[in-house]
């Protein structure tokens, strides 16, 4: 559903159901902005973020979660997340976050 929404906004979107598939996608594509669910089963979104952050220091990584205490949010920052969103989050908020993220990356690339 979210893929459909972002594609309408002319973004190229990749979707992975678990960490392994996500890492394969990263190996194959230059993904710069991402939304990760914290609850991925055996591995958490925090573990995945740490792995991604090692290879993509400039990527903008957002967490989406159904439940988080303050401790989990602190862990998110430690793991390398740039921001988090609590479900249910509307598409307008995610779109703004995405637009802002790409704008930021572009600015970093130009070193402004």
């Amino acid at each position: 559903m979210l893929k459909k929404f972002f594609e309408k906004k002319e973004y190229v979107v990749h979707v992975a159901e678990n960490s392994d598939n996500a890492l394969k996608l990263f190996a194959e594509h230059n993904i710069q902005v991402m939304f990760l669910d914290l609850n991925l089963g055996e591995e958490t979104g925090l573990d995945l973020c740490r792995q991604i952050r090692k290879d993509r220091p400039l990527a903008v990584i957002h967490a989406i979660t159904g439940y988080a205490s303050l401790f989990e949010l602190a862990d998110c920052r430690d793991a390398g997340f740039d921001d988090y969103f609590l479900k249910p989050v509307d598409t307008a908020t995610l779109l703004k976050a995405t637009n802002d993220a790409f704008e930021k990356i572009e600015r970093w690339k130009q070193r402004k």
Partner: protein
Amino acid sequence: MNSESSLTKENLLEVINHLPLAVAVIDQETIVRIANRSVQRFVNRKGGQLIGRSGGEAFGCSHAFDVPAGCGYGPDCQKCTLRDLVTDSFNRNEANHNVELSFEFMIAGTLDLRISTVPILLEGRRVVILSLEDLTDAKRQEKTLIYHEKLKAAVETGGAVCHEMNQPLQILSFAIDNMVEELGGEGREVEELLEVGEQIVRLGELTKKFMNISGYHTKKYLNKIQILDIDKASKTHEEIP
């Protein structure tokens, strides 16, 4: 000659002075005849201030001087469980073991006590051995522990509710957004969809409260059962009882 008839006050005091428990001997007029060292410490009075006085006076009951006649004659004395237990042991010649009650002391305030009363013959006279144990601290700790366990259960359940409900709410939210966009953002159908969207937001606010449970509060539901008062429970700055 049986062992009880050979028991003297001195023998008995010698024995009960070695006990860590507060023990006194009360006669049928509810006068204190013997008080061990522990009971003297318990009520913070020397033996001389206890022996020969009525139970309420000796132990510092807050109602001991409600009426001029003293302990046993005031209106609250009729409801005194301690008095009832002693009287019962005399009447039935049976012991009462480990009865928990609250007792109002003049100085210490209300304390939770565990009382036992045992009737015996002492120097040929019927008396009751009364033991007192202060449970106040233990009760307070138990109450705190129970509160913490309830709060832990509420937080864990709240977390599960929050997590599980937010998944379908998210899907509904995206679906509404998509449908509104596909309908061009205008029209009666869009208005109805937006109303649905508002309820989703409202549900989202509710699940956030489940996520922020910081205290255990309940409220009556249909005047029958207690349910979690999610508004109170999700406020911060909770004072632990």
